[in-house]
């Protein structure tokens, strides 16, 4: 009995101490938030820094921090220094939600950037709507559920900086028709993702409307490795191009196995192809006559792009990819909106984001559309021996 009582007392003491410790921490945070003239502005950076899609998250974060460093070095936004609050959501949507809540309720951020993938980004949308703090993603391309809700209403506090999947499907269909003079296409689609479905639907609609025909429509699921049987059966058909709406893990294998079987037709895809792993999986010889839509091309000769590439190489000692470029633009974009808002107030920043006109970035210049999607052009990149060899800009209709 005595022992039990002693244990109970001990646990109570620990619990009470814990409560006090918690209170202390809270009041500290509160103290930081106050102050008369703000000298700094906090921005949440909620990205996939580890886990499955860490390459996307890391790249975006590096791009954003590069932009912030440049802005801070040049005197900041309206005299305030930008303070990024970086958190890692481990590529999990539940974690993304709880970190967004933490950033918005405890860190007093004026806006949250990220996550990189549509699924994780969507998980933070309810939090943004509840706390009336804007969230912006540079790379969430899903058609549905991002900037508009299920019934098609615009999510007031949600913005993105990239075109969506349907636009990529449309772009690749018009590219196949106009630039490659294709009239017959085969689709090999990733049936296990919304991404593959959205791309395939829009490609089919645009390609058929332009007078083309889809000769065959095959499907696979993520993690498949053997495509020889599908490819053997389409090899016997008459077609001009193959469209592969999917991610690089499987696309790399499809390209390799197609070329091994002697299929030389051009292979088209979307931004899911943009990874150095594609080259590792498919090999140099196979990556000829491969085209994919993307947000940015390192072949672009725009002085702004060249300056970005040089700056990036100086800072990180490597070549930037599209996610770095999107992250960089996102950093500049939020700073621009805070500057135009003229106050460190999420509401004013939201209005400034929504009324963006003629923002000039590395991934193209755009106006913010009424549905909070930017109206911007896509780039179609052509690969030769595994290297980016050509880029064509396709403007939105």
């Amino acid at each position, binding site marked *: 009995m005595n022992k039990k009582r002693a244990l109970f007392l001990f646990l109570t003491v620990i619990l009470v101490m814990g409560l006090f410790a918690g209170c202390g921490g809270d009041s500290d945070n509160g103290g930081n938030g106050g102050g008369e003239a703000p000298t700094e502005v906090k921005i949440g950076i909620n990205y996939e820094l580890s886990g499955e899609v860490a390459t996307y998250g890391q790249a975006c974060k590096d791009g954003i921090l590069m932009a912030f460093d440049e802005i801070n070095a040049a005197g900041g936004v309206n005299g305030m220094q930008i303070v990024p609050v970086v958190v890692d959501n481990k590529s999990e949507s539940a974690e993304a939600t709880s970190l967004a809540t933490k950033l918005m309720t405890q860190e007093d951020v004026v806006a949250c950037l990220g996550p990189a993938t549509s699924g994780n980004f969507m998980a933070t949308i309810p939090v943004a709507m509840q706390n009336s703090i804007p969230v912006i993603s540079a790379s969430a391309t899903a058609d549905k559920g991002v900037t508009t809700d299920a019934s098609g209403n615009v999510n007031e506090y949600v913005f993105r900086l990239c075109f969506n999947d349907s636009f990529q499907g449309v772009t690749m269909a018009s590219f196949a028709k106009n630039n490659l003079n294709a009239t017959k296409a085969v689709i090999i689609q990733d049936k296990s993702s919304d991404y593959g479905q959205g791309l395939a639907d829009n490609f089919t609609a645009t390609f058929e409307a332009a007078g083309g025909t889809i000769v065959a429509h095959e*499907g696979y699921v993520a993690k498949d490795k053997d495509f020889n049987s599908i490819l053997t059966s389409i090899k016997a058909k008459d077609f001009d191009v193959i469209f592969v709406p999917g991610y690089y893990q499987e696309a790399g294998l499809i390209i390799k196995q197609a070329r091994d079987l002697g299929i030389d037709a051009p292979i088209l895809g979307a931004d899911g192809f943009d990874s150095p792993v594609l080259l590792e999986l498919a090999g140099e010889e196979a990556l000829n006559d491969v085209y994919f839509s993307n947000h940015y091309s390192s072949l672009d000769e725009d002085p702004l792009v060249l300056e970005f590439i040089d700056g990036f190489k100086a800072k990180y000692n490597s070549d930037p990819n599209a996610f770095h470029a999107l992250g960089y633009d996102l950093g500049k974009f939020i700073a621009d909106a805070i500057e135009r808002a003229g106050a460190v107030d999420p509401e004013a920043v939201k209005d400034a984001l929504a009324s963006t006109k003629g923002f000039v970035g590395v991934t193209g210049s755009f106006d913010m559309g009424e549905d909070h999607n930017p109206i911007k052009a896509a780039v179609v990149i052509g690969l030769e021996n595994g290297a980016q060899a050509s880029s064509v800009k396709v403007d939105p209709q």
Partner: protein
Amino acid sequence: MDQFIQQMVNGISLGSIYALIALGYTMVYGIIKLINFAHGDVYMIGAYIGFAATTYAQLGFFPALIISMASCAVLGMVIERVAYKPLRASTRIAVLITAIGMSLLLEYVMMFFVGAEVRSYPKLLSSETFHLGNVVINMQQIYIVATAIALMILLQFIVHKTKTGKAMRAVSIDQDAAQLMGIKVDNTISFTFAVGSAFAGAAGVLVGIYYNSIDPLMGIMPGLKAFIAAVFGGIGNIPGAMIGGVTIGIMETLVSGYGNSMYRDAVVFAFLIIILILKPSGLLGKNIREKV
């Protein structure tokens, strides 16, 4: 016709890999009546060992294959000693659940160490292709089938012509009687795990080279398919596992080549259900009455 032959070539290469994995399932089942669900993950680890040997140590195909087979053999024995041997007197369901736990453990420990992203093998075998009419056969397919056949002949030799093989057969028929005859049952079981795991390791390296893509969860699907192959051939029966593997490979290829590629897995698993209903002992399995 060309297309059909081409599909057969594809199916046989895929099937040889299933057959190599199925052998491990069937041998282990034959000897201790355990469906070793961790077997597909041994195959995955074999692929990673081959990856390390070729990428970091820059070894060629044969040294990598041998290193991977040897390491997997050791891994197989360790798994048996650590996870299954202490449970040998327990119910079969307890060991089966342990096997599933072992499988998840291997998957996520690997994921912790190597990350979840896919990796690709360096180029080891020439991707030279041979054209027979319109049928294309590449060097890697020839290597896969040749390695599989060589290993299966070796296995037949071990099981039927060596003393250890005789011991394996004796233990699989009656463990207690074998022990009374002076056979070291524990060593024989260890050896069976070693051989089965080595074959899985070989399959891992072959897949790494052929498909050029490995990841920590790559063992799940081929593991299940190989299990179906083993059941189809008659679980516990070695030639049955080979026939089963090749059959499943060809079946998958024909379904996605001539039917709809989305139904491929569904057809294979439906096939498992049909076998279990119509001929539970499998193609070459014998109907043995359970002793009560």
